[in-house]
């Protein structure tokens, strides 16, 4: 299927691993696993400290309970937020570069056709969407691409809030300082929603967890 066609376009394995016997490709190569867990850690820290900051001047009629905030007070919340900003951004940039250069995005996330999305959402809702290790169905492609976009928006709007004078171009593009705060909030909400669905699905299909830790092996028929 599409995955196998695209796989053939990547570098021949015999050449890259000269001398060594060819091994099965991992489901998740190590750079991806590393970046996945660094990202998970960064997201927990950024969301927890971000909620602490939100509580100092809530946009809506609610605050986050202290149990799920990080820092304990505004100053520490900001300190954590602006510290882990760098892990989130460096790791995110590494992921975007790696995803492009390695062909990961092309192979796994593209294309996304509306027809396939409709078909797979229908199948998912009828619990008839099988999980195929190593390839993503259309719903997964849509969600993974969506959360990457939400990640880019959350970083840009965050920069726009942090530096509305020096990075005014970003702030203005988002509609100004006040609007940028809402953009930042909703991008966060999108990411948190994604994480909730993501963790729920991993709980429903727990066999997908070990490959994200140990790599796993693609079945011979797929390579």
């Amino acid at each position, binding site marked *: 299927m599409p995955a196998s066609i695209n796989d053939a376009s990547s570098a021949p394995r015999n050449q890259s691993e000269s001398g060594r016997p060819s091994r099965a490709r991992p489901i998740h190569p190590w750079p991806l696993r590393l970046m996945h867990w660094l990202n998970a850690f960064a997201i*927990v820290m950024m969301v927890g400290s971000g909620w602490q900051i939100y509580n*100092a001047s809530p946009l809506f009629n609610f605050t986050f309970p202290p149990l*799920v905030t990080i820092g*304990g007070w505004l100053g*520490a919340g900001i300190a954590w937020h602006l510290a882990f900003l760098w892990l989130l951004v460096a790791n995110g940039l590494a992921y975007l570069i790696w995803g492009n250069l390695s062909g990961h995005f092309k192979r796994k996330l593209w294309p996304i056709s509306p027809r396939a999305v409709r078909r797979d959402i229908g199948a998912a809702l009828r619990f008839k969407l099988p999980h195929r290790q190593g390839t993503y169905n259309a719903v997964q492609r849509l969600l993974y691409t969506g959360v990457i976009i939400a990640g880019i928006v959350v970083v840009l709007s965050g920069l726009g809030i942090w530096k509305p*004078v020096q990075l005014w171009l970003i702030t203005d593009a988002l509609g100004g300082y006040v609007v940028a705060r809402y953009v930042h909030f909703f991008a966060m909400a999108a990411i948190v929603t994604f994480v909730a669905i993501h963790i729920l699905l991993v709980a429903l299909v727990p066999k997908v967890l070990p490959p994200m830790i140990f790599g796993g092996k693609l079945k011979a028929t797929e390579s």
Partner: protein
Amino acid sequence: MKKLDLKRRKLLSRALALGALTALPACDYDDPAHPDLADRFLHAMSSWNDRVQAALFSRHTLAPTFSASQITNPPRFNAFYDISQAPVVDPATYQLELSGQIQETAPLSLAQLRAMKQESQITRLICVEGWRVIGQWSGVPLADFLKRVGADTTCKYVSFKCADGYYSSIDMPSALHPQTILALDFLGAPLTPPFGAPMRLRIPTKLGFKNPKSVMSLSVGNIYTGGYWEDQGYNWFSGS
């Protein structure tokens, strides 16, 4: 030392609880005299962020200005105490004290400050908490002021001490920014006590808490003097 170890153990157990999303509530700069591991990490990252912000800063990038109709009126009071506790400084006897790398350190009266060239701005004050207000301030551009009193503008810091015990300090490039003023008026009338009378720093390229009110003394030097909130963990540069 024992306390440090205890806190470290506490940190470790908190870190282990990370998965439960109850992470690190203890790491809150709660004891600046005894920084724990998390405090030291946050401190290092905050210094890094100071350097990044200094590199991003351009004295030619102006803070946005607004129209008179956008001014927040009445203004919003904010301090580390209630509005009823705001200090009242007698404008008749007020003297701004000058010290450090300044040639003419004779104290200056309000009349002397008012005799200098004034500049007006309608700018936005963004609080570290996230809210913002728009106001019209006018006063003496700090760059003009520093030149006039013969300050050594190659120094790193300009520090301020206030009537209420508040204190803060800013980097020299930000001090020389054209929109940084020693504000005397708000909306065309002299500042009132809760809003920084008789003189406050107005620096729209930084967050609100970097705009000390009721400034009693100003000093120029190369020794880092921190600030009331900065010493408790707020980022020192805090540029917008």
